[in-house]
């Protein structure tokens, strides 16, 4: 079992308080996933790129902070927990390359123009407090609470998983064909950090998107190629997408008001949002791809 929440702000008030609302939703999903928690926030940055890196050692993060400021001008740094967000005028790819070369031990959490990923093992309510989620503002966010079933409990095994620039994936469920699929993706050049089944789903999307698929095409292919149980939520630069497997044992709820669009594993997370009692609430249909990027669309996302 795991818990998923997603929130898209339609108003400035929700944007300003995005972290506070997502934190409240995430805490409600603590019982579904007490092992670890993670969140992807989307907010405009000061530069051309945002890269989030993580290391358990604060000294290492200090070293990265010093080094990156020497290497590049116009860099802005934000520290949160064991994570460091590097905003710079360089491209995301240039920053990723620099991180991989200079600090191969660092975990590269995310890269893009707007995404920031924070995740950590430990109870979700501790995560919400330790990472001071209430301070964070942004346009939209996805978050996850994990109850591990297939692999170890570590920060690397936690969700969200980056699936490319400004893209990430969270998963509730378990995949049964991940080992074979991972081998195939490794041969195609996709990197994996863990033996986690959800990371294979993320890697699969990364691979399809690198082959020129739209997000919608990649998800349609995922329905064919991924075997197992899943509710996926996929964060995109401008919104998010939701997909449930055709058998749809894993729950999902969508809700909308004039102020926000939300998704969650359960309504009790959505119930934390202002005006939830009068929201339009519905259950996403199995094997149907929902995308939200300012409006609910059947069109192609990302």
């Amino acid at each position, binding site marked *: 079992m795991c818990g998923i929440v997603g929130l898209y702000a339609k108003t400035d008030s929700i944007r300003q308080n995005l972290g506070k609302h997502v934190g409240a939703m995430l805490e409600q999903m603590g019982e579904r996933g007490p092992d670890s928690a993670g969140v992807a926030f989307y907010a405009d940055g000061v530069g051309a790129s945002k890269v989030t890196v993580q290391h358990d050692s604060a000294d290492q993060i200090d070293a990265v902070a010093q080094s990156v400021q020497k290497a590049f001008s116009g860099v802005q740094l934000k520290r949160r927990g064991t994570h460091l967000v590097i905003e710079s005028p360089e491209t995301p790819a240039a920053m990723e390359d620099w991180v991989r070369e200079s600090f191969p031990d660092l975990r590269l959490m995310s890269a893009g123009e707007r995404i920031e990923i924070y995740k950590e093992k430990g109870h979700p309510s501790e995560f919400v407090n330790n990472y001071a989620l209430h301070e964070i503002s942004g346009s939209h966010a996805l978050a996850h609470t994990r109850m591990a079933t297939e692999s170890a409990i570590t920060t690397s095994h936690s969700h969200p998983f980056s699936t490319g620039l400004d893209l990430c994936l969270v998963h509730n469920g378990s995949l049964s064909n991940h080992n074979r699929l991972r081998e195939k993706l490794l041969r195609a050049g996709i990197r994996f950090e863990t033996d986690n089944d959800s990371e294979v789903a993320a890697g699969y999307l990364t691979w399809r998107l690198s082959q020129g698929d739209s997000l919608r095409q990649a998800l349609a292919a995922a329905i064919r190629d991924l075997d197992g149980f899943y509710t996926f939520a996929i964060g995109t630069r401008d919104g998010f997408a939701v997909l449930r497997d055709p058998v749809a044992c894993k*729950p999902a709820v969508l809700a909308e008001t004039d102020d926000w669009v939300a998704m969650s594993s*359960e*309504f*009790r997370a*959505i*119930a934390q949002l202002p005006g939830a009692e009068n929201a339009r*609430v*519905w*259950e996403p249909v*199995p094997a149907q791809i929902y995308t939200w990027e300012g409006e609910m669309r059947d069109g192609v996302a990302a």
Partner: protein
Amino acid sequence: MNTFDLSDNPVRELNQHLHGAVTGKVVVSNAGGKHSVAVGATGAHEVEINGNVGYYCAGMNCDANIQVNGHAGPGLAENMMSGRVHVSGNASQYCAATAHGGLVVIDGDASSRCGISMKGVDIVVKGSVGHMSAFMAQKGHLVVCGDAGEALGDSIYEAQLYVGGKVESLGADCEEKEMRAEHKETLQSLLDAAGINDMTVDDFKRYGSARKLYHFNIDNASSY
């Protein structure tokens, strides 16, 4: 009248009251998607729940009349024994699973696996039901005014299914059946009980077991 505001009070206090001998009107506010609201009610309580409920609302209900003004999460009225449960919105998956008796009325849609393994309950859904509904249904009636999803009544035993709309597909050993006078009478009584007067029994088709699978037969091994 007893009132329980679930934003302040634990669900357990409500449920303990419903397990007690004192019956009467109970109003529950701010359900907030909480789990196990009004589970195990015993006796002729009149329960009104305001707000959306989470997992397992009205499970194991015995004799209580439970009205949900909102949507219900997964596992509504699971293993209900008797009484009545009415949801004004939609119900999520496996509504009335394994339920033995009583009446469940859903004004909106019910999701997948509605009435799975039902054992005597009557279910009336004014909207549509999702895939695998009435899977291994043993006894009772499922009335769907709208459409039914894939594999309706797969491996069904003796439950009777009535569908007003389109059936996406029938499951193994489920077939359309003749609507005789006694079936029309049963269906009419269920429509009346659910307060449906904009449809007549002639709008429905009946489905049930072809009775080919539920005694083991080696020739059917590939179908099991």
